[in-house]
């Protein structure tokens, strides 16, 4: 069964305190690993797509990496405006995205 598990469920950081979010998935032919950001009351906003182990992508303070079993979203020197829920999803064999439950990140000044 396709599953995506994100950890931790919630993460509280001080401004400037770097950390990582984890996304692990069942391995059966990965066809893309996606990261989204979701602000309260809004739809998810696309951040990154990763396709193969070893691939990395960066955007401002965020860097996404991919191994054979998991992906990490590294947040370097976060700011309060980085507070949001971060969703990870994998594409299954049928082509649809299967989402994890998200990590709620809170960055305090």
């Amino acid at each position, binding site marked *: 069964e396709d599953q995506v598990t994100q950890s931790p469920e919630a993460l509280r950081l001080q401004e400037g305190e770097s950390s990582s979010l984890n996304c692990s998935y069942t391995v059966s032919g990965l*066809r893309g690993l*996606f990261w989204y950001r979701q602000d309260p009351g809004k*739809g998810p906003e*696309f951040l990154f797509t990763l396709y193969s182990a070893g691939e990395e992508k960066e955007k401002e303070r965020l860097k996404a990496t991919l191994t054979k079993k998991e992906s990490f979203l590294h947040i370097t020197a976060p700011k309060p405006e980085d507070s949001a829920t971060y*969703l990870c999803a994998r594409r299954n064999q049928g*082509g649809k995205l299967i989402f*994890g439950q998200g990590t709620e990140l809170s960055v305090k000044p």
Partner: protein
Amino acid sequence: DVKVTQSSRYLVKRTGEKVFLECVQDMDHENMFWYRQDPGLGLRLIYFSYDVKMKEKGDIPEGYSVSREKKERFSLILESASTNQTSMYLCASSPERLGGYTFGSGTRLTVV
């Protein structure tokens, strides 16, 4: 900038009412999707469509139906709303089966 527009941000309906949630995309995308999002359950796929007049059931289709008469519009229908359908509903589209999704802003539906 590409857009997926959901007709209502907030909606309150009574139990038993027929409810229509509308979604329009301006990107000429082939594929459209309806998800619901609930605390602790994440995003769950209700229905999707890979072409006009085509629809397929997702993981939780019970109590819902959809309509796609035009490429740009994908409607979610609650035939007889129930309180357990209170949720955030998210529409998304993608250009191809392997493309990323663009989401709308969501409709928070409350059934009383």
